[in-house]
């Protein structure tokens, strides 16, 4: 009973914070049907600004800056207002240009903004956590309720603030002129314009209010747990999105109910289930997945929100002329690419020759390792590209396939053969090659299993569901210690070998990777240049027309997941043996986003794009380390990546390799 009461008190406070953040998602989704992933980051920025304002001095970009040292009661509103301003600017400059673009484009922008804000915060405030300054109320002794339940005064304040702000918002939306205009826009934007409502203003207002709520939630969260950190918004952001979907996205009472429900399930699951606290984060995602499968409209929501995104994948941009420097880069890449016409045997052989020669001409192990990374990420991106680029299904759980391949071979070689049966890896060198296939097929199987429940879903919901799958698999890999060794990871995975000849040197690893890349590249190319590729692209371009032309769309979607998964699995096996170490940290949502960005940068739905994106990014990562300012703030590189992604979506959504569009037939 004591435990129950304590858990209940914790859950209610957490639920209040989830609910506040869920309001942000719900409000914006209701008005513009956009999942603004960046609310999780605005949540974090709100907390950081608030803490900064409360301290006498803060180190920004490593420079100590004097701060006013305001009391919480002044710092909080100021921080909240500043975040509101950021939210409005984000809407104005990142989302508004894409208002009429296919829905994948703003979704990718949302992801890019998330990365941008998080990396920027890391550069500004540093990667260390900052503790939340003490203030009057936090120093009070906890109250004791019913003799045994300890409740901090601030927990009551959090709940009270949440209730008051939700009530105020409800009244605002219910009975003010702007609130009515917001509801009208949510119901029918065209009719709203016809009665004289300025849609731009309503959307800006939704972003403003949403950002205010996210910031409020963020600083309440920070004071409750006593710290701020650049990644602190990530999980609560996802949870809040889950809560919003749970309650029925678009509904404000739904957000409140969803937030409370999610917090209750999490807290009690963690408290009562065996090993529950380890799987705490998985509960929410599990519920999310079940919900999307059986009741995608949530508890209080409406069904029509799972719409088909018709037309091409990301559109042709906002029709804006990109800046000069940007055009120059694109022209450079294109001129190079136009020489590389797919299908020209001489040229393909030439490129291959250069790639092989590189292994012998480059003497630095360091750069060879970088090239191995380019190949690994290029291949992963190629696998994901089948699903996202060719078939048009935004998959945020792709890293799971990579993880499956990596863990399969690691567990087999290290935990089973070496440690259980005492078999030396050198005696079973051939198993690496077998595992490439097994890993591929296992991941393909997983692709079908995870793809099946998503068949009905489109657009945003598909992305959210795959994200849930990816997170569950990562959480499982972290916590199923017997199988995976948990966060410690598995060490001592043998390098590949051929008979007695070890291939552990970077030069040979690079050649093995290159061989894999050639085979996989050719296989994907051949599938794409056939009726299968045409079926995939037809689903991307217009799913209902594809169906009407006789394409069994569920089957080809599953086949896309399986093919992408296969590639991910194969690369996973290679990755484990080339790194000789795997841990759950390699398979995060961030990695998935990174891989997605590589494709977007290179060109969605092109064969060569993923490799160009990977080469661009990984070489940039290294080169940029020599730039002084970036040297001291390496996270800025990721901020630049996020920014590049946003600009790409606005100016050149097809990526830099847009001209390298694949012919969907055998070249003649």
């Amino acid at each position, binding site marked *: 009973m004591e435990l129950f009461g304590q858990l209940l008190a914790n859950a209610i406070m957490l639920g209040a914070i989830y609910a506040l953040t869920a309001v942000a998602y719900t409000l914006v989704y209701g008005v513009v049907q956009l999942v603004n992933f960046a609310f999780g980051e605005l949540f974090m920025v709100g907390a950081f600004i608030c803490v900064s304002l409360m301290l006498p001095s803060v180190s920004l970009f490593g420079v100590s800056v004097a701060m006013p040292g305001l009391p919480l009661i002044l710092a909080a509103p100021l921080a909240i207002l500043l975040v509101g301003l950021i939210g409005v600017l984000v809407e104005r400059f990142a989302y508004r240009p894409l208002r009429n673009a296919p829905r994948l484009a703003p979704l990718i922008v949302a992801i890019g903004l998330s990365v941008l804000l998080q990396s920027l915060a890391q550069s500004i405030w540093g990667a260390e956590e900052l503790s939340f300054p003490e203030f009057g109320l936090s120093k009070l002794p906890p109250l004791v309720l019913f003799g045994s339940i300890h409740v901090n005064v601030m927990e009551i304040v959090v709940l009270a603030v949440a209730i008051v702000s939700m009530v105020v918002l409800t009244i605002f939306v219910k009975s003010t*002129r702007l609130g*009515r205009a917001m509801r*009208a826009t949510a*119901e*029918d934007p065209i*009719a709203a*314009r*016809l009665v*004289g*409502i300025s849609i731009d203003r309503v959307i800006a207002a939704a972003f403003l209010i949403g950002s205010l709520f996210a910031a409020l939630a963020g600083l309440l969260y920070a004071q409750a747990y006593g710290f701020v950190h650049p990644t602190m918004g990530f999980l609560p952001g996802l949870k809040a999105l889950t809560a919003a979907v749970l309650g029925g996205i678009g509904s404000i009472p739904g957000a409140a109910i969803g937030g409370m429900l999610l917090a209750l399930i999490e807290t009690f699951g963690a408290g009562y289930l065996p090993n529950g606290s380890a799987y705490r984060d998985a509960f929410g995602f599990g519920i999310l997945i079940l919900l999307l499968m059986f009741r995608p409209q949530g508890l209080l929501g409406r069904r029509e929100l799972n719409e088909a995104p018709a037309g091409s994948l990301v559109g042709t941009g906002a029709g804006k002329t990109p800046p000069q420097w940007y055009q120059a880069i694109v022209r450079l890449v294109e001129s190079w690419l136009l020489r590389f016409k797919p299908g020209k045997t001489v040229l393909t052989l030439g490129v291959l020759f250069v790639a092989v020669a590189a292994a012998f001409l480059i003497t630095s192990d360091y750069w060879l390792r970088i090239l191995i990374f380019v190949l690994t990420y290029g291949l992963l991106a190629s696998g994901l590209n089948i699903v996202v680029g060719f078939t048009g299904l935004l998959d945020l759980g792709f890293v799971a396939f990579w993880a499956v391949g990596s863990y399969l071979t690691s567990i087999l070689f290290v935990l089973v053969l070496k440690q259980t049966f005492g078999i030396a890896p050198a005696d079973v060198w051939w198993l690496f090659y077998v595992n490439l296939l097994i890993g591929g097929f296992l991941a393909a199987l997983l692709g079908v299993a995870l793809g099946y429940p998503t068949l009905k879903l489109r657009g945003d919901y598909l992305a959210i569901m795959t994200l849930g799958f990816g997170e569950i698999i990562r959480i499982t890999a972290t916590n199923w210690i017997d199988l995976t060794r948990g966060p410690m990871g598995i060490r001592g995975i043998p390098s590949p070998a051929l008979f007695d000849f070890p291939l552990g040197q970077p030069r040979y690893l690079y050649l093995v990777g290159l061989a894999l890349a050639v085979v996989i590249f050719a296989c994907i190319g051949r599938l794409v240049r056939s009726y299968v590729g045409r079926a995939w692209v037809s689903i991307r371009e217009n799913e209902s027309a594809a169906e009407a032309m006789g394409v069994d769309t569920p089957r080809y979607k599953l086949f896309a997941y399986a093919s992408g998964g296969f590639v991910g699995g194969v690369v996973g096996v290679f990755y484990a043996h080339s790194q000789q170490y795997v841990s759950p940290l390699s398979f995060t949502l961030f990695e998935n986003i990174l891989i997605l960005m590589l494709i977007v940068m290179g060109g969605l739905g092109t064969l060569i794009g993923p490799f160009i994106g990977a080469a661009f990014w990984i070489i940039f990562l290294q080169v940029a380390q020599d730039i002084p300012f970036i040297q001291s703030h390496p996270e800025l590189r990721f901020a630049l990546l996020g920014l590049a992604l946003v600009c790409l979506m606005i100016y050149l959504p097809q990526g830099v390799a847009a001209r390298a569009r694949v012919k969907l037939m055998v070249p003649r």
Partner: protein
Amino acid sequence: MTAPMLEISGLTVRYGPVRALNNISLRVDRGTIVALIGSNGAGKSTTLKALSGLLDLEGGSISFEGEPIERMAAEKRVARGMAHVPEGRRVFPRMSVWENLQLGGYTRPESEISEDLDHVVSLFPVLGERRRQYAGTLSGGEQQMLAIGRALMSRPRLLLMDEPSMGLAPQMVELILETVTAIRDEGTTVLLVEQNAAGAIRLSDYVYVLRVGEIVHQSKGSEIDDELLKTLYLGHDL
């Protein structure tokens, strides 16, 4: 001589590769009902959408009370005195009848809204009776009245009506068409798009007939007889 209420010249609109309106010109005089008729896909709704600012023009000009408005945002045109009752009514289904009407007066000063509400209720008493009901639960005819009432709340001098009789029972069609006349008699100019050609011709002062994005006939309603109508409307052989 004052400028006509509305004057369109050389209006051209494209939907992607389709030219939906090709160089059409028409004029609506103050205090009249002008009907725009024609078969499906002739471009009637497109004309209204271009007028209210929902579609961008490829060419041509629109002058409203002598002022060019072709570049004005849709919401500004409402404030200028032009309201559009859209095809399919498009009431806000999960908002009450009263809220729908209040939204209709979005561009008006709050203080004058209650007076306008009274006026709309006097025109459509049933809306007063159902003020608390969700608009989505009204019958088709009631929704049409609400859509018209909502548009009138902005006190328009020009009312654009798109197929107000579509999908309604014959009695209701009659009632809606009578209302159109009543609105005109109160001094509001009406541009009426109708598939119910006979009904529209009967009550309007002037008629334009559209076919495949072009105006193929214009005259007073009384000059259009059945034979001419069939020829213009259904093709030559019917």
